[in-house]
Each structure stands twice: as C-alpha cells, then as structure tokens.
C-alpha cells in the first residue's frame, strides 16, 4: 500500500508535467491541425533561460514568472516570424518547420549552455511535508503548481472575451473574422500561451530529470500520449489524459517487472498506437468529420 501510494503521487507529479505539455500541444493543434513537435524543445529552452536567470541571482519565483513571460513573447514571435509564412501552404511545409524548430532549439541550447547535465533547483524543501512517507514535497509542489496553472488557463478561456475569441478563431476562422476577430493574432497568442505553459512544465520537471538539451524529448512523447488518450480535440480531456499517463506509466514501471524503468517509454508509444487504433478521437474527444 505504501509503495502504491508513493508511486501514485510520483505519477501524479509527472502527470501534471505531461498535462501541461498535452495542453500546450492541444492548444496549437486546435488552431492549426498540427502537432507542434518543437513544443518540448521550446520548453527545454525556456528552462535554460530560467537557469540563467537563477545563476544571475534572480529569486526562484521571480525567475518562474519571468521565464513564463519571456517564453510567451518568444512563442508569439515564433508564430509571427517563422510559422506564419508557411501557414496553409502545405502540410509538409508546416511539419518541416516544426521539425526545423526542434533541431534549432536543441542545437542552439547545446551551443550556448553545452550538453553537460546541470542541476536545476526546486523551490520546495527537501524534507517531506509533515514527515509523511508517501510523497516528496517537490512532487506535491509540482502537482499543486500545475493544477493552479491549468485552472488559470481554464478560467482564461472560459470567462474572458479574449479567451472566447481564441476559441472562436480556432473553431471557425472565417466566422471569427466576420465578427472582427484578428485571427492571426489569436494564433500568435495561442503560441505564446502554449510556450508559457511548456515553460512551467520544463521548470517543474527539470529538478527531477536534470537539465540538458534532450530533457524534454520523452516528456513531450508522454504529453502526446496524454493528449491523444484524453482527446486531442478537447483541452480538458488532454489534461486528464496527461495525469492518467503519468500515473499509469509510473505504476506500470513499478509493478510490471519486465518493463521496469528502461521500457517505460515504449509504454507511451504502445498507448499512442492503441488509442489511434481503437479510439482515434480519444476518451473525451469530439469526432470531427471533415467535409470535403
């Protein structure tokens, strides 16, 4: 029982990180119909920016907010400058741009900060809260922070006019233009938000997996798995899927002997394939019929 609880909490912490990545991916997918393969490397780059701020002596939580803000601006710029020119040209062009972004962020990070593994601080104390045996304080903090961020995103989309306009622009750009919504800027805003949410994921997971240019590769894969499981067309579903994948992955790693920690990643792939085969719209997805 103790092991089960420990693993579940640890899984929820990873799940929070996957949920953030899943949400970031879904936000861009809804607006563009594409998976942003560079989402993980963007988050990694944000984490390096946070790392630099910390080495300059900026306090942790200021760093946290600053890194989110910088990532937001960076995301907006990427959309305006790099993605926009190829938008709607062809699927291949767009995918190539995403993959190009991935490669560029990875090598630029390696070039600036080197490929050596760096420790990244956690804002939470090392001692377990109230001396409990089940959950580390960092894990608890990760769960808490991701829930706060995800809830804030929910409130933004649900209750603000700009959030509503972003949903409208993603659903039906032509109609959105007819009511005066600047669809291009809504897309850019979506990229900015996705980048900021990814930054949160990167900063929270870095103390666990350590900081290096490839740190987000597998995490993005789990994020994809979570998004697909919950439903790539449903942000709330994707968030749920992220948490579910985190818990499943940890429990499977702990209890299924032949999988262990080495084969855990293939679990994500198996899950992705299984979802695509048996329920392509995910658990909570909308079935979208494309009229041709």
């Amino acid at each position: 029982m103790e092991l089960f609880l420990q693993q579940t909490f640890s899984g929820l912490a990873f799940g929070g990180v996957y949920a953030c990545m899943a949400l970031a991916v879904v936000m861009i997918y809804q607006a563009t119909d594409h998976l942003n393969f560079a989402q993980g490397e963007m988050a990694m780059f944000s984490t390096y920016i946070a790392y630099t701020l910390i080495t300059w002596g900026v306090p942790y939580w200021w760093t946290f907010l600053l890194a989110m803000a910088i990532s937001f601006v960076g995301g907006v710029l990427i959309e305006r400058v790099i993605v926009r020119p190829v938008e709607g040209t062809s699927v291949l062009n767009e995918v190539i741009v995403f993959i190009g972004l991935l490669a560029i962020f990875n090598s630029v990070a390696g070039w600036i900060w080197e490929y050596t593994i760096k420790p990244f601080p956690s804002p939470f104390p090392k001692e377990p809260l109230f001396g409990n045996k089940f959950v580390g304080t960092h894990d608890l903090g990760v769960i808490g922070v991701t829930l706060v961020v995800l809830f804030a995103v929910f409130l933004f989309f649900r209750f603000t006019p700009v959030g509503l306009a972003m949903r409208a622009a993603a659903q039906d750009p032509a109609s959105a233009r007819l009511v005066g919504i600047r669809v291009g800027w809504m897309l850019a805003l979506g990229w900015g938000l996705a980048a900021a949410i990814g930054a949160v994921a990167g900063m929270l997971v870095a103390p666990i997996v350590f900081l290096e240019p490839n740190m987000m590769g597998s995490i993005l894969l789990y994020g994809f798995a979570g998004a697909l499981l919950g439903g790539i067309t449903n942000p709330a579903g994707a968030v749920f899927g992220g948490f579910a994948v985190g818990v499943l992955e940890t429990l499977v790693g702990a209890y299924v002997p032949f999988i262990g920690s080495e084969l855990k990643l293939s679990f994500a792939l198996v899950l992705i394939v299984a979802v695509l085969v048996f329920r392509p719209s995910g658990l909570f997805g909308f079935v979208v019929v494309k009229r041709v």
Partner: protein
Amino acid sequence: MALLEVSKLEAFYGQTQVLRGLDFSLEEGGITTILGANGAGKTTTLRALCGMVRTRGEVAFGGAKIAGGATESIVRHGIAHVPEGRGTFVRLSTEENLRLGAYTRRDPQAVGEDLERVFQYFPRLKERRHQQAGTLSGGEQQMLAVGRALMMGPRLMLLDEPSFGLAPNLTEELFDILGAINKERKVSMLVVEQNASLALAIADHAYLLETGRIVISGTAKEIEQDETVRKAYLGY
C-alpha cells in the same frame, strides 16, 4: 451621399472571375435586395464587400474606402454579414455565439441591452442560451446568425438567404423581424434571397444579377413589374 458605393467591383476565385464589374449603391436606412439565379454571384457579391474573396474595384462605406482591406478590419466599420451556411460556432454556446458578435464593442451596457433585444426578437434563443449552438435546429441557427449580426451594432447588415431552411411561417416571422430591425435600429440592409417575392416585399430597391453582371436595377416596385423578373423569379 449613399451609405455604400460600389464601382467596377470584380471578384475572383483563384483565376476564375465571378463578378464582372458591378456598380451599385445603397441608401442609408434602406433595404436593398439582390436577385439572381443559382451561381449568378450573389453570395460572391456579399463576400467581396467583406474582403472574403480577391477583388478589384472600389467600395466606399460611409465615405471610407474599404476595398482590399482584411475582413476583420472591414467589418469593424459597422458591417455585419450573415453568411451563407450561417457560420455558427458549433461548439460554443448560443450565448457565447451572441457575445462574440459584440467582440469589438467597448460599451458593456449597450451590449447587454442589445442581448436582451435579441432575446426579445428571438425568444427561442433565450430558452437555449446555454445550449451548444451546433445542436440547435437549422432554423434556430439562422436566428442565431441574425442575432449575432445584430450584436455587432451594425450600420449595414448583409444577409445571405436568411430564409434558407426555414418553414414558411418562420420565414415570414423572420422577415417581419428584419423589417422591425431596419426601422427601430436604423440598420440598412442588403438581402440576397431565393424567395424573390418575399425579398421584393420588404425591399425598397432591387438589383438583378446574371453571371456576374447587374442586368436590371430599380425600385422594388419597378422590378416587381418587370417582365423578365416576373417570369424567371416570381413565377407568374
């Protein structure tokens, strides 16, 4: 001066030219209708005014040159387009659809009043305000499209077959409401309609479009008497 002044308007889908130089104008406060057979270019005309297709030529609205602008900039001058196919945001609620109409307005009080007014015109929408708009019936979505346009507080409404998919009694009701909006809210209208007799009854001016050209124009009364129009569109 006319509210809308169109000269030599041409429109293209890719290389295909669909409008071949339209000249017409709209008086402030009036209702004008464009008649024409399927494929004549009625929808394209409304799209061209809103910058939804590639155009050439001049369009002046309230004295401002709007041709060639982006759709989202053009509509901000006060043009509300009820598009062919309704353009419902299917996964948003009825009320969210309506609120989006007021997206560019910064006067919450007037917006709130307009929302109430839309609910008065279309009580059905009020009953279904929290329902996902995609699950509304076709007729209800048509009301929603008109309501959303009203929420923009427009000077001009472009209506593309507002009666499409409506039962005859609902069509009449809708046209009564459009007439009321025109009088009470001082909203000018450009209506494209399959149902020519209905359109001519409500309109004061009419144009007949044939393969991208205006072939007949005049007051609604004159057009109603016109031999060609009667044979082809009114059926008597």
